[in-house]
């Protein structure tokens, strides 16, 4: 087995006296779809910001795609894709301009941008929309586009922070199909969500409560351990206890 995509050991972040993330220790394997769950304010976003190099850890360390997030955040950034809960493309640029921009930023050649960009638009059915401003296309398509753009440089790991917030059930289903395809190609998917049905689709899930990882395992394992029928019940049980 090759080295894991993400290794976190005692990863901690404090804001003054408040401990937002308290000694997270976990591993995520390559090609895994890892669900990162937790109530609002449980510390998910803080943890993601540390793993993506946006926030320095207060203690502990983490390795993402072989690079230490504390010492070599630039190395991490070259190897990851990121799609935030807030919409991350430029709404006042066209679909194609966004693709070109991110391709250029990640150091793709003009030919690569043309080929990968064209294939990307084709697969999303966005070719007719190439010259449309991103702000003018429907939310579901936007989210799928943002996901594809986050993958344009073929990262080892992609972080999705509540990627399906506000989109309709059909688009959510299609989005998850995209996630599976991505994982099948060997890209690790690290995803946060509030939808418990989505959690069931993950290879493994973790549940954060008050900055700590209260549970970690496959959905089936967690349901069995807590003697309940759904991940939703596991979540409510843990969140209430915390």
């Amino acid at each position, binding site marked *: 087995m090759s080295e894991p995509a993400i290794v976190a050991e005692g990863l901690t972040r404090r804001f003054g006296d408040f401990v937002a993330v308290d000694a997270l220790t976990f591993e995520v394997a390559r090609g895994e779809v890892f669900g990162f769950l937790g109530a609002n304010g449980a510390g998910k976003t803080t943890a993601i*910001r540390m793993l*993506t*190099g*946006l*926030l*320095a850890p207060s203690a502990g360390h983490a390795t993402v795609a072989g690079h230490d997030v504390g010492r070599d*955040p*630039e190395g991490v*950034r*070259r190897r*990851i894709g*990121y799609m*935030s*809960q*807030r*919409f*991350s*493309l*430029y*709404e*006042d*640029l066209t679909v194609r*301009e966004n693709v*070109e*921009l*991110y391709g*250029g*930023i*990640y*150091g793709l050649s003009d030919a690569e941008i043309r080929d990968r960009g064209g294939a990307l638009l084709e697969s999303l059915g966005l070719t007719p929309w190439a010259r449309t401003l991103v702000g003018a296309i429907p939310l579901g398509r936007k989210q799928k586009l943002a996901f594809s753009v986050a993958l344009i440089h073929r990262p080892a790991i992609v*972080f999705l922070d509540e990627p399906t917030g506000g989109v309709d059930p059909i688009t959510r289903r299609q989005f998850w199909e995209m996630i599976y395809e991505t994982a099948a190609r060997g890209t690790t998917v690290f995803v946060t969500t509030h939808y418990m049905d989505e959690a069931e689709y993950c290879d493994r899930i973790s549940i954060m409560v008050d900055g700590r990882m209260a549970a970690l395992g496959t959905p089936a394992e967690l349901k069995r351990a807590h003697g309940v029928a759904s991940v939703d019940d596991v979540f409510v049980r843990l969140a209430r206890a915390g």
Partner: protein
Amino acid sequence: MRTIRFLLRKEYRQIFRDRVMVAQIFMVPIIQMLVLANAATFSVRSVQLWVVDDDRSSVSRAIVDRLTASGRFVLAGSSASMAEADDALLDRRAGLILHLPARLERELVRTRRGEIQMIFNAEDGAAAGIASAYAQRIVAGYGAELAAELRPAVGAIGAASDAPRAAGGSLDLRLRGWYNPELDYRDFMVPGILVVLVTIVGSMLTAVNIAREKELGTLDQLNVTPVTKTQFIAGKLIPLWSIGLVELGVGLAFAHAVFGVPVRGSLWLVFGAAAMYLVVALGIGLLVSAMVDTQQQAMFVIYFILIVYLLMSGLFTPVRSMPVWAQWVSAFTPVQHFVTVMRSVLLKGGGVGDVWRELLVLAGYGVVVFWVAVRQYRKRVA
């Protein structure tokens, strides 16, 4: 380099796609010039005149006519009682009460002296002083005319405020030169207004532009990419810097074509100084954007800084009449130095030899502000 090219293309596209922004860039200099150049002058026009004429004679009517005919006074109303006139002054329907006492004409003929009363609203002391100088001159002119016409019957009329008293038929009126009402303030104001413009573009657009990306979340997105701090800052500042220079060009061309503001010195020098000054302005914008989270906060902080800067810069009020500590503060605002360069080069044809001190200060400023701003800017929160 390649990354910067992509970032620049993005930035220019976004700026020129934003109609409001484009309108701002090209219309604001013109509108600001039209409004400020005409409004921000020290000459006083159309003072509201309120007449209390107790005499109702040909002389009293002639005085009112002379004042209104000058174009500087507009008849706002009249009344029989002073009480009503007082009210008008109080609620600003009148800026000047002209009280012509009963028997003015008769006294003039009999004693060769007449007294009239003028009461100014001196809330704005400078404006009242100028208006009073106008009025005194007009009244004195009429007095001299009367004296010549009716000699030896009538001597003169003196305005009773603090006007010089006419004595024995001749008028001794001392007009003070510094209230020269014909002086064209436009040439003096326009270079300053151009500086305000460049400052606003530089600081405001930079701070708001970056704060906007923070607000939308696209900044986080850029921060998780391999884009370096230098690339990001260059990608943001080069477009805004170039727009600042274009603005200055638009404003200057307009001022020259419409107001005939002279360009006596070298345009290279003007734009060279502007290029340096813009680095300061952009640096301030960058610094502010690092401190704030939203566009609103950015605007608020920038407004605060700009108001202090502009008031302290000697643009609207002479630096020498400030308290000493304020003069020191003023010496430390970059605005003042750029205004000095602009006025010197445009109006007096000054060359590098005349403004090298200011240029040096601007360059120093640019280096310091920029250095601090770039250091302050972080991709990652510590």
